[in-house]
């Protein structure tokens, strides 16, 4: 573990330095190991592409004590603690008003709308992180043919359910939101429900397939 201190109550654990499925699997395993042990000293864990941020309660432990505890327990980590990822299908209405950036994506990539949809729906994506807003999945890795720059100035509002592309990622906006990604369609699937546990449809490591609605 590459461990560093981040503020008075943060521990940043790095598992690599790039966006990579093998590195991410290490993040996922460590995250579920932490979850399975329900450490009362830990208030929040934020897993992402290549790291886990642990937020701990300073009234219950110290940086040094928690690191020592994690190192000790980590050696006892067993595969039982690590659930298999679930796969989720997300139906999307591509193009038209709901996918208003489709013309831009076509001209930028030189592909037809059908080709773009075909490429987007043919891959199984991994949830690398959930954040930016509640339930927003960062999905990768996108086919290089759909590589697009982010908008320089994000749009102030895109509707709930908008499906976007940015660089080698794709994602879905669970709420109406400002957005810097290019929008190619929209889904009716609810990605976040603040009224019902577990609130987020997806968690880190889950797999996603998009299908044409």
């Amino acid at each position, binding site marked *: 573990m590459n461990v560093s201190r981040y*503020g008075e109550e943060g521990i940043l654990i790095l598992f690599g330095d790039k966006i990579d499925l093998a590195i991410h699997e290490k993040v996922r395993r460590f995250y579920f190991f932490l979850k399975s042990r329900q450490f009362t000293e830990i208030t929040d864990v934020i897993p992402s592409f290549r790291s886990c941020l642990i937020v701990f309660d300073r009234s219950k432990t110290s940086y040094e004590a928690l690191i020592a505890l994690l190192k000790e327990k980590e050696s006892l980590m067993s595969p039982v603690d690590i659930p298999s990822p679930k796969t989720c299908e997300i139906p999307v209405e591509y193009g038209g008003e709901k996918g208003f950036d489709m013309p831009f994506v076509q001209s930028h990539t030189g592909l037809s709308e059908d080709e773009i949809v075909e490429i987007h729906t043919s891959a199984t994506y991994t949830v690398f992180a959930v954040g930016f807003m509640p339930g927003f999945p960062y999905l990768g890795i996108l086919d290089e043919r759909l590589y697009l720059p982010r908008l320089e100035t994000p749009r102030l509002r895109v509707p709930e359910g908008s499906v976007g592309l940015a660089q080698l990622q794709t994602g879905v906006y669970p709420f109406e939101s400002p957005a810097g990604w290019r929008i190619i369609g929209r889904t009716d699937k609810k990605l976040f429900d603040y009224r019902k546990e577990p609130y987020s449809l997806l968690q880190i490591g889950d797999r996603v397939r998009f299908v044409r609605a």
Partner: protein
Amino acid sequence: MIEIVNPGMMSIVVDGGRYGYMEVGVPASPALDGYALRALNRLLANGEGAPAIEIFGVGFSLRFGMDVSCAITGARVMADLSGGPLQSWMSFAVKAGDVLTVNAIEEGFRYYVGFSAAPVLDKFIGSYSTNLECRFGGYQGRALQKGDRIEFENVRKVGERKIPENFIPRMNPPHMLRVVEGPEQDFFTEESLSKFLSGTGRTFTVSTKLNRTGIRLDGKPLKLRAGAEESIISEGLLPGSIQVPADGLPIIQLHERTLGGYARPALIAKADHDLLAHLKPGDAVTFKMIGIEEAGGLFDKKIQTAVLMNKLI
């Protein structure tokens, strides 16, 4: 019951915050001045993180439909209760029909109004706080508007109590914010860092781009070292992190984001987080780097102060 007569510039329901679901992107959205919320609830004999109304801007006014006790903490304000002048940082009794109005702010930016009663509102994901961006929590997931009514239960009355003067923090600019090292400190040139973090050096100004998500500062941009990336692979973000986007101007991140993708040269020491609630456009800000142990000590001292306050009143 209370009825909002005037919401000021903005008023929202907040509490101690929403924790435990940052893994799926749920931000804490707590009262930005946690010490003020704690003092408020102490005055009113409520639980430490009980909900209250967080407000900025003058003119806030509400009408009471019940006999209850009320208090205002956070920014020092001049207020009146049906014409009789009031001070902040003390509890006072109100009668049904009374109108509370905040007429001026003397020091600080955000203030908190609370009651010795429990609002009849739904808790979502363990908290009453409003998530403005996703429109849930608080009062119908939005800022309060004229005419909104909040019902209460468990209505009690408490004695008139006052927070001693030496327990009220200073909130006036210039703000000297203490910081600790951030994960990408080495992305920036030595010169940029030493001027940025010396405490007496470079002064930044709070811009008008300020909300509950973050505070953008104006001033001389920080410079990235040759070869340093402009952005990082998005990862977990702690409240108080200073993020520096491509234009070099720092953004102080508050509690509404769990992931970030910009380099973080520093992080505001926890002891100074409450002060962030009182940065307002035009205020001068300087930063001073301290060690992590010192920062921990300062925060412990702050908690001790709060504990002592609890004993005194």
